[in-house]
């Protein structure tokens, strides 16, 4: 970072949206600067106004928005007051955007090369010696797209999500901009793809030296890429600090809560109180907007407006109590009540040699179509009573398919699934009422799993009406108890799903499962649709429920941090095959399966140093005869990986790893990566 005048200076930006007949203020005096070559991160929960700020740097707002004050200076010119032709000459040229969702942001009917050529034709290539076509290829090369000479002829839909985002980045860089605005550029992507994109951005910044404004809801991502971070809450900038300072000594209670809610891989170390409650726009006090959710608030917080004030070198915070909070800040919150699972007991669920495949869609298609390759193959695992077994893997690894098979949505092609010692019929309609009652499924997205036209009480009551109350209670009493179990007030029974927040909806879905008094709960990515702060409270709920009700959980997740906090045992899945199975602590410690190792390294903020070669994209098509990870594996042992199915190797702890490399060699790989930036 060079000293000198900042590239971007946002001063006291006030902005309002038209809401019915009113103007609703969404930005309140937002101020920050971005230096030459600096990466500034803007973080906050959805709806805090961070994207609105970002788009002002491009001079863009929706027709229903109005600037009510402030300036947005880019190289000394106020972007808020430029005419459309003036803006057109800057956009895509000096200031460029990398959008959140490249799938919808790239023009669907235009080849990607043309879309970049369009920018070059408009503003002229930065280096005048080079033709537009050459520049396009150079850009594709720069962002690491395969076959840069040919990929320009593709349409957006012919590229993967990661490739589309690379095209969008290439488009942004076409004219060598001074500033790149990135609006949640990795949000829709897989964790490994996200890692690759972050790696690309880091190396591009090293080579090109542009400034970046990186907008995200994920603090973990910023740890890896930002020089400084601004934390926004409800349209206010509440804290600005260098990245290491923010992670080491956050001052604002909201920033602390955000940091504490961040799932972490390692369980040790200090941990603050996670965030509670939700941002409610209709209920903001005149003073500090965070006051209703703040544990450290005093009465005057609600009345007096908070302004950013210096709290150290380059560090500003908008909280009247920050000096007094300092000492009490870090507390240790550790739940040490992990149930010790008696593994000797007969398993509740046993999956034996199961292959799963999806049939061709239409009924007549089955006569013509050859049978598809299995999505899951040779699956073996067992879950003991009261145990929480987690299945982890990237999207497409088949983990949800397994849950679907256990629930009876699809029948196994071969093998059997045993529930409480009895073989389960493949499809749900062949199962007994008792079996249907005892296995309950909770879906990823409560928006979709609750009938929007039914009240919560009716939704929860239905299983009880159908199965009959096992404990003889009345339906109303059963609903009340189920609501109480998920810590919702009885008044929620009268609400429709759209009157509930995401977390409340997921609680209703859990209550619907609990009212059937199940033995086994299938949790399919049930946290991934929720905000970080809500995730923490649902994890807490699950921990309590399984303790009190002695539930057996099959927990499916791509989020290793969550798994670490919740699971007793873990199975790591890659392309439909189990790669590693063992107790949670053993999974997160050496020896690692090479794939598990890659997964752990890909968690944002988990890497020791930047610059590691990222894992390539998962191959498509049917896997070959050898190890399914062969070809993508960074430590491949030799030709046997391509040709032979690897053996299971069992460690003393009971950890099982399926790999050609012996355990003692796998044990020599680096230990669990820790978050250097997170623990100063």
């Amino acid at each position, binding site marked *: 970072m060079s000293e000198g005048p900042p590239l971007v200076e946002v001063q006291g930006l006030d902005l309002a949206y038209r809401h019915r007949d009113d103007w609703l203020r969404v930005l309140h005096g937002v101020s920050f600067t971005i230096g030459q070559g600096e990466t500034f991160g803007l973080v906050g929960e959805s709806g805090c106004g961070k994207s609105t700020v970002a788009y002002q740097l491009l001079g863009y707002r929706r027709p229903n928005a109005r600037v009510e004050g402030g300036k947005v200076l880019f190289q000394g010119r106020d972007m808020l007051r430029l005419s459309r032709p003036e803006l057109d000459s800057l956009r895509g040229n000096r200031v460029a955007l990398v959008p959140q969702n490249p799938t*919808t942001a790239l023009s669907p009917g*235009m080849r990607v090369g043309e879309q970049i050529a369009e920018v070059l034709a408009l503003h002229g290539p930065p280096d005048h010696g080079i033709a537009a076509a050459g520049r396009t290829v150079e850009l594709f090369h720069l962002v690491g797209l395969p076959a840069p000479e040919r990929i320009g002829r593709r*349409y957006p*839909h*012919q590229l993967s999500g990661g490739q589309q985002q690379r095209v969008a980045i290439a488009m942004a860089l076409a004219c060598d901009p001074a500033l790149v605005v990135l609006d949640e550029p990795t949000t829709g992507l897989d964790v490994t793809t996200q890692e690759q994109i972050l790696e690309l951005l880091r190396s591009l910044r090293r080579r090109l030296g542009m400034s970046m404004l990186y907008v995200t809801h994920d603090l973990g991502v910023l740890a890896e890429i930002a020089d400084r971070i601004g934390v926004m809450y409800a349209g206010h900038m509440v804290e600005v600090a260098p990245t290491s300072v923010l992670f080491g000594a956050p001052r604002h209670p909201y920033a602390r809560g955000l940091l504490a809610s961040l799932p972490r891989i390692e369980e040790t170390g200090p941990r603050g109180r996670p965030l509670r409650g939700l941002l409610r726009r209709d209920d903001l006090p005149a003073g500090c907007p965070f006051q209703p959710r703040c544990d450290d608030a005093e009465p005057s917080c609600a009345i007096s407006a908070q302004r950013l004030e210096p709290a150290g070198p380059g560090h500003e915070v908008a909280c009247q109590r920050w000096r007094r909070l300092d000492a009490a800040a870090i507390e240790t919150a550790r739940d040490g009540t992990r149930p010790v699972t008696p593994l000797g007991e007969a398993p509740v669920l046993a999956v034996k040699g199961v292959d799963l495949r999806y049939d061709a869609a239409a009924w007549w298609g089955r006569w013509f179509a050859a049978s598809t390759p299995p999505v899951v193959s040779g699956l073996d695992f067992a879950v003991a009573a009261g145990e929480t077994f987690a299945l982890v893997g990237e999207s497409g690894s088949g983990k949800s398919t397994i849950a679907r098979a256990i629930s009876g949505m699809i029948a196994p092609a071969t093998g059997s699934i045993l529930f409480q010692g009895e073989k389960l019929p493949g499809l749900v309609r062949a199962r007994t009422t008792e079996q249907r009652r005892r296995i309950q499924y909770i879906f990823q997205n409560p928006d979709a799993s609750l009938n929007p036209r039914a009240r919560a009480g009716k939704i929860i009551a239905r299983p009880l009406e159908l199965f009959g109350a096992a404990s003889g209670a009345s339906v109303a009493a059963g609903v009340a108890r189920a609501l109480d179990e998920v810590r919702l007030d009885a008044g929620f029974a009268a609400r429709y799903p759209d009157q509930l927040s995401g977390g409340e909806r997921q609680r209703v879905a859990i209550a619907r499962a609990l009212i059937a008094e199940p033995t086994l709960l299938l949790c399919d990515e049930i946290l991934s649709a929720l905000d970080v702060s809500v995730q923490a409270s649902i994890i807490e709920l699950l921990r309590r429920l399984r303790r009190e009700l002695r539930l057996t959980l099959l927990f499916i997740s791509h989020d290793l941090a969550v798994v670490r906090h919740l699971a007793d045992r873990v199975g790591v899945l890659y392309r439909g095959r189990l790669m590693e199975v063992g107790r949670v602590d053993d999974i997160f410690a050496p020896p690692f399966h090479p794939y598990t190792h890659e997964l752990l390294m890909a968690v944002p903020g988990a890497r020791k140093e930047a610059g590691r070669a990222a894992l390539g994209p998962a191959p498509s098509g049917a896997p070959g005869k050898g190890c399914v990870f062969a070809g993508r594996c960074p430590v491949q042992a030799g030709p046997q990986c391509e040709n032979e199915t690897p053996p299971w190797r069992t460690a003393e702890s009971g950890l099982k790893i399926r790999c050609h490399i012996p355990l003692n060699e796998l044990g020599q790989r680096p230990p669990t990566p820790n978050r250097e930036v997170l623990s100063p």
Partner: protein
Amino acid sequence: MIVLRLLVGRVLLSLVTLLLVSLLIFLILEVLPGDVASRILGRDATPEVLATLRAQLQLDDPAAVRYLRWLAGVLQGDFGKALTSSRPIGQILGPRIFNTILLSAYAFLIYIPLALVPALIQAVNRDRPIDHALSTVTLVLLSVPDFLLATLLMIGFVVMIPVLPAISLVDDTSTVWQYVRAMTLPAVTLAIVMAVYAVRMLRDNLIEVLDSEYVRMAELKGLSPRLVLLRHALPNALVPTLNVTALNLAYLIGGVVIVEKVFSYPGFGSLLVDSLQLRDLPVIEATVMIAASVYIGANLLADIGAILLNPRLRSG
């Protein structure tokens, strides 16, 4: 490859539908309970006349045999003979279809600018007074039945400003000018009815595309409003447009029935109404079959167009 398979599948599906249509028409007209001959001739028919008709239609054969015989004829382009005039139906249909095609082409010519211009004006001036005004006009026009619209135009251009003929009779001796004069009012009626639908759909499609993220992205790349509209918005709004036009072609087949009748234009539609009034069964069957074929053909063309225009199905 995928494209080819989709196209073949779509064509086959259309043929199946067409076959089913022929079966349905036959079922509705000939197999429904009650005697066909007495339904045609009415209650007062004498037994002798009934018997003659029955023999002429070969009604004593089983329904399946009659259907297959009729279908075989249709497949060879032979629709049989009209009951009333005993002329081969092909001869009757020929000039009528020619007249209707002429009328439809004229109507389409008027329809295209009538649909495009207001939709573009509305989409660009979204939620401004001109948009609301045009929306109101199209909604009112949408609610005016075509037979009323035709009558209103007649009051306007025949009664109040007598520039056009009230009755659009033409035959093979008519001059080109007579044809144009005769067809103007019916064509304008059809064009207005079709355009009203197209305007409303086109406006919504255009606005949807203008709201899309890729249009915003184009704007943020520095493209001027004009370039954004021409390069990114319009091409992507084109595919749905095609669909509207096919639907309008389908409407046209129903529309000509009314409009030709109102203006006594000797086309295909008025032939259908006349044959229904005369209960001329073979002619009815032939005209309905042709109407359904045109509808199915129009939809087929629209789907093929959509498949060919869809970049998702085009390869590299």
